[in-house]
């Protein structure tokens, strides 16, 4: 037992004197979790709190163009600025290049008359379907010139899609309003009253948003609840750089020859490294979670809320840490050089994180990746943490995710043992 204790003490001393290793294990993940959460949080705020600047050039002389602008304004997503109708495309593009606006919309000339014609045609068809006399569209209506939307290239595809969706709904509202007005006029030969129009078009049915949580709470998770556990797992697995490198360094150094000539099994050295680095992973988790809970609110980020089951959180962190350490050990035993351990270790963790759903949500992955995802230990670690942090679950609720982590850990340990035997290290 004293041998093991002395070895752990040695490993801790070597570790705390390795400044670069400490920065890699503690400094880098903290920066990562801060930056990623800040980015995701600001994205959320950009879409939900800040308004996107939108230039509007209304070349239409009728009322429907104005209606469209009002409908867009009502969406609440945009900060509208109208430019003179005679401004050229070049002017609009120039304004956008200076990032004055990220979007511009040009309403074409005769937009109102063409929408009206289209509405008449639709209304006529509807009336004839009801058996009433109406314009069945024998007169050919010109197709409506499209609205032109200019996007700044910095807007990502996902934003473009949501912006497009919002603009379509505004356009749909304007068209529906016109069809309704035409129908009303055709039947009753008088204008549609504003109150009725509002009643029919603007009185939306309420949508009640409820987050499904195991513990019955209905709070909506913030960016910290999503990001902090994910990047904590990433940090834990990133000990491969320090631990894998340390095993290779020891194997290649003269001290290994001495260790082999002593009456102690090398497995004691590996056991010590496992214990030392398991403590490191738990400290990483404690530090990053602590930062999420206590530091985030001071830097304007949403705070991380601890799950109700703290002992469950500890157990999940312990299992995740053990899996991360086993992975690093396996890399260290099989790598021939430190460059191999560092290079393969780092790249493989990034790949496992990517396919494990740390970077892109697992539900958004193509089906072909969903099988590969199940092979990534980081995926199961993330699922276990999400079960606690997002779904309000307890240890028993996430046990189904812990089992694969244990299986992967055992496999990695067996592989490490075989590697040690094969290389005659034990």
């Amino acid at each position, binding site marked *: 037992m*004293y041998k093991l204790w*002395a*070895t752990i*003490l*040695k490993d801790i001393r070597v570790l705390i004197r390795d400044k670069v290793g400490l920065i890699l294990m503690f400094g880098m993940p903290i920066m990562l979790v801060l930056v990623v959460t800040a980015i995701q949080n600001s994205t959320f705020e950009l879409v939900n709190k800040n308004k996107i600047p939108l230039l509007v050039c209304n070349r239409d002389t009728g009322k429907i163009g104005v209606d469209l602008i009002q409908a867009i304004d009502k969406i609440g997503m945009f900060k509208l600025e109208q430019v003179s109708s005679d401004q050229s495309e070049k002017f609009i593009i120039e304004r956008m290049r200076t990032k004055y606006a990220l979007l511009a919309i040009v309403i074409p000339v005769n937009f109102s008359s063409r929408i009206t014609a289209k509405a008449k045609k639709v209304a006529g068809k509807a009336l004839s379907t009801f058996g009433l006399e109406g314009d069945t569209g024998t007169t050919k209506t010109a197709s409506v010139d499209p609205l032109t939307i200019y996007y700044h290239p910095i807007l990502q595809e996902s934003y473009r899609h949501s912006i497009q969706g919002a603009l379509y709904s505004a356009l749909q509202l304007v068209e529906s309003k016109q069809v309704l007005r035409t129908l009303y006029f055709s039947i009753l030969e008088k204008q549609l009253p504003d109150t009725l129009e509002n009643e029919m078009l603007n009185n939306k049915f309420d949508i009640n948003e409820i987050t499904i949580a195991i513990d019955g709470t209905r709070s909506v998770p913030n960016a910290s609840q999503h990001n902090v556990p994910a990047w904590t797992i990433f940090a834990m697995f990133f000990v491969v750089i320090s631990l894998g490198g340390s095993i290779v360094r020891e194997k290649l*150094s*003269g001290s290994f*020859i*001495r260790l082999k000539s002593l009456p102690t099994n090398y497995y004691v050295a590996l056991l010590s490294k496992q214990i030392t680095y398991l403590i490191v992973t738990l400290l990483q988790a404690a530090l990053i979670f602590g930062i999420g809970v206590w530091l985030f609110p001071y830097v304007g980020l949403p705070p991380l809320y601890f799950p109700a089951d703290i002992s469950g959180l500890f157990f999940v962190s312990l299992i995740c840490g053990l899996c991360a350490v086993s992975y690093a050990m396996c890399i260290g035993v099989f790598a021939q050089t430190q460059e191999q351990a560092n290079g393969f270790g780092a790249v493989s963790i990034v790949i496992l994180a990517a396919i494990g759903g740390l970077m892109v949500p697992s539900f958004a992955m193509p089906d072909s990746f969903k099988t590969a995802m199940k092979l990534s230990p980081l995926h199961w670690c993330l699922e276990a943490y999400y079960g606690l942090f997002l779904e309000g679950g307890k240890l028993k609720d996430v046990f189904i995710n812990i089992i694969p982590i244990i299986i992967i850990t055992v496999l990695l340990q067996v592989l490490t043992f075989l590697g040690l035997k094969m290389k005659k290290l034990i």
Partner: protein
Amino acid sequence: MTVMTPLAINIENLGFSYPGQQDMFFSNLNLKIAAGERFGLFGPNGAGKTTLMKLMTGLLAFHEGSIQISGNEIKKQNRSVKKLFGFIPQDFSFYEELSPAENLEFFGAWSGLTKQEIKKRTIELLDMLGLADVRNKQVRKFSSGMKRMVNLAIGVIHRPGILFLDEPTVGVDVQTRFAIINYLKQLNKNGATLIYTSHQLSEAEGLCEKIALIDEGKIIVHDDLDKLLSEYRQEGLEGLFLKLTSKEYRNV
């Protein structure tokens, strides 16, 4: 009546080949080293000195024959036999991030000593080898000579009866070499068997009383140094070495 000196090392009919090589590197090799001897193993590069030392210390496994350390078969009692000897490799075999005291604490534990024994031996050794003032400083900041002293201290912390020394003085100044050789002689006086290998033949001459010359996996001669010098009419070990192993340059 002749009193039989117990053997520190007894190698009988040793057969060894490197993995993937069909030719035996050692075949039917026999060597006996008496307890308390100051024994030197010499030979040109690639002759087999380091391989033989690795076999004797259990770092390499052999296929045929036997190696006994103080009467214990190394193959059968690998772990307990390792307690009987100390090994001082040519490379600095310690953790440069640690201090001499911390290195001794770790390697002492791995050598099977208790915490109390390690404490006592650390004070003794650091005093004896002139490292007491730097006991808590990181070894990485030490000179080459001081690092050699740390290397030596680790190898002897458990008071081994047999000490394997692979180039223990390489890269040190004359004063440090003198101090190391004196310390080794002191250990031998106290009963330790020294099994030494080096290319510093003048140094070896002052330390070893018995030598073996090895070449191409075979022991060419094995006897008292003085006896061999007079038999081959040589004034020093270097002359004897060149006479028996030829002057030809070996590109090994």
